[in-house]
């Protein structure tokens, strides 16, 4: 469905060039995201998530939550507020179709072992390895460990008042070491 919408967006871009109405140029839009999220949405920075290959529903939802103020963020709430709902949908579709590329990183085997145990209770939503088939759940396998830690800390910290109450509840039960371990475990599952 989205693919069709996108294709027709490109086609209409070609047909309507020159009209006053600015045409949606999704690759141009995505180029502005790549600065922080990496070329093609594959991040090279440990604190920034790769976004290529994440589920479309998740991407769209998280952007809309930032835009509508439901999800706090130190910075994304600002930028995303300048994009239309249509652009957000197009970006979500665009990145979801790109291949998921695990981050190249070293993980601590001890923490990975602990993380495997701790994440047993996460598998209902996130799968055994962080690879989820659910359209609204992000892929975690091979994501940057530091990013995963920072996000988990946000869920645990009341200062952020994060929207997903199930995640908040789960994160609150974790010690600092366990949060690190969870992140290292998912980061190591790069298949």
């Amino acid at each position, binding site marked *: 469905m989205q693919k069709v919408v996108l294709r027709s967006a490109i086609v209409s*871009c*070609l047909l309507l*060039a*020159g009209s*006053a109405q*600015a*045409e*949606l*140029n999704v*690759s*141009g*839009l995505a*180029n*502005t995201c*790549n*600065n*922080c*999220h*990496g*070329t093609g949405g594959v*991040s*090279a*920075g*440990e*604190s*920034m998530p790769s976004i290529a290959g994440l589920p479309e529903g998740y991407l769209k939802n998280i952007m809309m939550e930032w835009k509508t103020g439901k999800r706090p963020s*130190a*910075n994304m709430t*600002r*930028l*995303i*507020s*300048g*994009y239309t709902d249509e652009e957000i949908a197009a970006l979500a579709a665009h990145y979801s179709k790109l291949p998921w590329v695990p981050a190249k990183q070293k993980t601590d085997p001890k923490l990975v072992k602990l993380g495997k145990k701790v994440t047993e209770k996460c598998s209902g939503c996130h799968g055994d390895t962080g690879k989820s088939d659910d359209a609204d759940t992000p892929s975690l396998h091979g994501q940057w460990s*530091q*990013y995963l830690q*920072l996000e988990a*800390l*946000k869920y645990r*910290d009341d*200062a*952020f008042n994060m929207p997903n109450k199930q995640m908040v509840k789960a994160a609150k039960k974790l010690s600092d070491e366990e949060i690190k371990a969870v992140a290292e475990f998912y980061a190591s599952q790069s298949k």
Partner: protein
Amino acid sequence: MNRINRREFIKLTAAVGALPVLGFPAVARAGAAKARVVVIGGGYAGATAAKYVKLGDAAIDVTLIEPNKIYTSCPLSNEVIVGHRDIKTLEIGYDGLKKRGINVLHDFVTGVDRAKKTVTTQGGKTLAYDALVVSPGIDFHYTGIEGYNESMIEDIPHAYKAGPQTLLLKKQLEAMPDGGKFVIVVPKGPFRCPPGPYERASLVANYFKHHGKTKSKVIIMDANDSHSKKGLFNQAWAKLYGWEKEGLGANPNGMIEWVKGAEGGTVTKLDAKSKTVSSDFVDVKADVLNIIPPHKAGKIAADAGLTGTQGNNFEKGWCKVEPMTMASAVDPNIYVVGDSCVAGEMPLYGNPNAAFDMPKSAHIAMTQAKVAAAAIVAKVNGQPVPNPYYANTCYSVVGDDYGISVAHLYRVENGTFKYIKEGSGVSMMTLPDKSPVPAAYRKLEAEYAAGWLRNVMADSFS
């Protein structure tokens, strides 16, 4: 706009495209690239332009000309000055671009012949182009402060082009005794990295704190009456460095002083021997003196006739561009991206003279380069100009686990740049309920700054 040019261009590309089918002779095949794009200057903007043209159409021949074999990132180089970061983490070469099939020529451009559409180099090469990207960054005006000239930068560093200058300022800071004055002279805008001088002041104060030099001071002598992220900087300074208010000597127990232009911040005179800078109001003797000279577009842009010669501070000396494509306002075959262009309109720091320019940041330079690359690829392939988007994210690290940022978003509407207020703004000063922003937010932005750096370097050079 440039209809004839474009039509000719399309005709040309169509002809070249058809030739291989007819069994194009070897002689012509040597020059049979779909189009030739030359990029002058291999900073964030130039590297990104080269990469994204190649990504957009691998059949386009792309040559990047850059004298240096290693690029040193200016963003986060203030962390090097205070010992928080190794300068090696800011360095990157051009192998990533070469692997993408981009020709990298380490040479110095001596001239651009716009009529012949050629670029000549010190090494004796002449390169023909169909599209030229000009991204030389900034040059300094060494005039304007009496008693100051370029030969002094080995003693009075600017450290506003990263590399040896950064390390020199670091060495001087380390040698400064407690109770000393570290004076930063800020030029009239526009200058690259608008929050740069204030981030530097913050990190120098942080250095004092960590190295038992708490009697020392950072004095910012500013030719401007306001600055980037001012509220956030002042909040951080008050929290971390004992700052209370503006003015020279206003914070006896603080480590940072900011003197605005209207109140004596505009430095007009230097006594280099005693490192004393003077304005119409005051003389300040520095132990470490960091003069950031006024900026202008890189020399090559001026030599090529791309810079404005009239208008206000934001037009004179800089290259005006077409909003849809980043093409030079005076030459449709040349695209000017990065710090040397003047683009956009935004209400900046309440200063009416400062209301006309996109900030000169690496991030925005890269989005400008991507717009130019897309426009070039479209033109070569006879397609309409894609709708452009420009964005900026700029982090400043102002203390331990303390980062702040500003974001900007621009679109083009009816042929002019449009600043999108909804997609722009600085980090929160308070939470929505007016309570203080938790430290966790500031820590996150400090972490994001480091991740941002890795990504912008990779998105440009790898």
